[in-house]
């Protein structure tokens, strides 16, 4: 007879830690999964906007416009990117996602006047045809990289790292290396892909500078070149990205997602997006390059409030990855038996690495892929992006801004001491910024 009242869980060894130790004892290898960091970290939820009052006046809706356009790549490129909204779709590979998902992303982005980004598998024709503005990643693996796609792209993104695993390379398990994926990546079908963590032909910002020059020579100085980093030593990295010649810097916080990485990497490396934004903006201001070299922030951007707060802190745009996947159906409450088959339930699923995505987003299996029709996916994502934009405009108008980029740090306060210190914003109701005054 168990007295349930006496059952006490250990805070040091709670159920999921026990399960993980048992799993490690069974399998002898680290746990690999998709999605971003799941643990709670200080984030944009801890910041609040100071809306209009007696000293500030709001804008009316409708004719008192709140504009949302942004230009990326003004520093060196002859053809900078013009976006209608300051929200882009982050790099996610064909391979980690299926072709239908990539097409959905492209169609929605085109409808909303924004860009998508290729990933660690190269450019598919579906994505190039469906996406009006396409950013082409140059990653350590160089899978599928070729000068034709370089020239067909609208911008290039040199990936130094991503928030989920700064210092790590790509990963794709055998079950997702289909004939098509294998062909694009020059790998044997069905094997587990091992990826490099450093670029094959440069190491360090001094050599990156030369590499960026090479990419400019190949593309005749037309295309903006982004440098993407996972958030760790953000001050140095943003400074060095600028010194290496980047037009745009992309900073991805630890909440950033992945389709397959070691859990230990996802949860224990990198800093949250909140301090990363502040550090990145500080670095740009120190170099007198704020708004000259544009800053894109990603890693756990979920709604218009997150986006507006990132912009208020000084970013020029945000990028969404996991959220875009969720809009396409990730963790949707459907096909529940198929979630159970891979050992999870809707709302908890992070099983992109299995390739058995029940909603057809992160899979290469045709029967599962068929569950996501590109037109439906595009509609969902377009609606979600529209919602985000409307939310941003609502907040910006309430702060009296006729352009979302006019949001500034002084429009924000923090609700916790950690968030105040990390964002360098005053604790609500006080003048106190921990660490600064």
């Amino acid at each position: 007879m168990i007295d349930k009242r006496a059952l006490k869980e250990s805070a040091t060894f709670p159920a999921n830690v026990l399960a993980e130790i048992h799993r490690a004892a069974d399998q002898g290898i680290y746990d690999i999964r998709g999605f971003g960091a799941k643990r709670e970290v200080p984030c944009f939820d801890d910041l609040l906007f100071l809306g209009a009052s007696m000293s500030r006046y709001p804008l009316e809706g409708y004719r008192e416009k709140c504009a949302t356009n942004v230009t990326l790549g003004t520093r060196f490129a002859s053809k900078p990117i013009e976006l209608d909204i300051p929200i882009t779709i982050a790099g996610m590979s064909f391979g980690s996602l299926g072709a239908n998902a990539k097409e959905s992303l492209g169609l929605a982005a085109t409808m909303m006047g924004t860009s998508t980004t290729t990933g660690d598998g190269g450019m598919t024709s579906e994505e190039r045809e469906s996406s009006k503005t396409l950013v082409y990643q140059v990653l350590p693996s160089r899978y599928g990289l070729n000068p034709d796609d370089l020239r067909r792209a609208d911008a290039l993104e040199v990936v130094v790292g991503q928030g989920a695993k700064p210092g790590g390379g790509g990963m794709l398990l055998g079950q997702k290396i289909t004939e098509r994926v294998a062909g694009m990546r020059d790998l044997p079908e069905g094997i587990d892909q091992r990826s490099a963590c450093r670029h094959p032909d440069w190491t360090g910002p001094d050599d990156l500078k030369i590499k960026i020059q090479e990419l400019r020579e190949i593309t005749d100085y037309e295309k903006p070149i982004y440098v993407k980093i996972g958030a760790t030593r953000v001050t140095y990295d943003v400074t060095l990205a600028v010194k290496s010649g980047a037009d745009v810097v992309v900073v991805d916080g630890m909440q950033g997602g992945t389709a397959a990485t070691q859990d230990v990497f996802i949860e224990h490396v990198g800093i949250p997006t909140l301090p990363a934004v502040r550090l990145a903006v500080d670095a740009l201001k120190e170099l007198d390059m704020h708004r000259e070299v544009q800053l894109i922030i990603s890693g756990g951007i979920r709604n218009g409030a997150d986006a507006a707060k990132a912009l208020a802190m000084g970013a020029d745009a945000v990028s969404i990855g996991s959220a875009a996947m969720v809009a396409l159906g990730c963790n949707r409450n459907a096909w529940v038996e198929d979630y159970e088959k891979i050992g999870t339930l809707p709302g908890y699923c992070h099983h992109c690495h299995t390739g058995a995505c029940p909603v057809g987003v992160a899979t290469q299996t045709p029967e599962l892929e068929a569950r996501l029709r590109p037109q439906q996916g595009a509609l969902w994502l377009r609606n979600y992006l529209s919602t985000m934009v409307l939310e941003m405009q609502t907040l910006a108008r309430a702060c009296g801004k006729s352009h979302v980029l006019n949001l500034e740090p002084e429009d924000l306060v923090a609700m916790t001491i950690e968030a105040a210190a990390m964002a360098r914003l005053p604790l609500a109701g006080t003048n106190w910024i921990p660490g600064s005054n």
Partner: protein
Amino acid sequence: MCGIVGIYLKNKDIQSSLGTCLASMLVQMSDRGPDSAGVAIYRDPLTEDEIKLSLFAEGSMDWQALGLELEQCTGSEVLFEPRASHALFTVADNGFDVSTWIRANHPALRIMSAGKSIEIYKEKGPPGEFVSQFDLQQFSGSHALGHTRMATESAVTTEHSHPFSTGLDLCLVHNGSLSNHNHLRRKLRNCGVNIQTDNDSEVAAGYVMWRMREGDSLEQALERALGDLDGFYTLAVGTANGFAVLRDPIACKPAIMAETEDWVAMASEFRAIAQLEGVENARVWEPAPATVYAWGGQ
């Protein structure tokens, strides 16, 4: 991350061209090192009873007054030569510890180098400006190291520039990034090595000096460095008589060497060497990883 250059003139007759060679090499490395530049020039070796110090002052400094003070301390004539923000002092080496005295009485000054023949000058700003500020083309000498800096983890200041000197006639320039420099800095300070900044390259300089103080030859010190320094590095070390080059075992940071009858040169990129007289006939090679190369003896 940075550019490093080094040149050693085997042919004594061309020593007057040292400055011109060094200047052109330095300027070629501007792209990979735009933040600051520095050189260590070995020339005009002094006798036993004299020592020269290169001193740096932020802002204006009454070098004349300092000279008079030092004359009082050493009881001997002091000569000085101002050069941009630096001044080269020649003082008697008669038992009075000039360096310690300066650190105690003029804490705002920085001692960039001390020795019989070494002169270190370094400054913030692009290499091209450094060359004209310090009139580098005019220098003659036997050998020199140079460095152009792209700051990674420590600030862009004059003190954080290379070359670093932590011993008499000894200096070091570094391209790369050490991953355990904080631990090493603490350990070296415990051993009494004076390390002034948070710059990883200064730690490498301090380490070499420490090993040589403990009795290692330069080669031995560098061999030991392979085990104790962690990270990516191409190092060039200057001594009174020559210089040495070392790459870490992973050897990702670039290094190229060239040798003719008249000179030996090293650089991060070949284009720094491409301008030197006689390069068409030079033997050109890359130093192997984890291997000490040395010229001119210690």
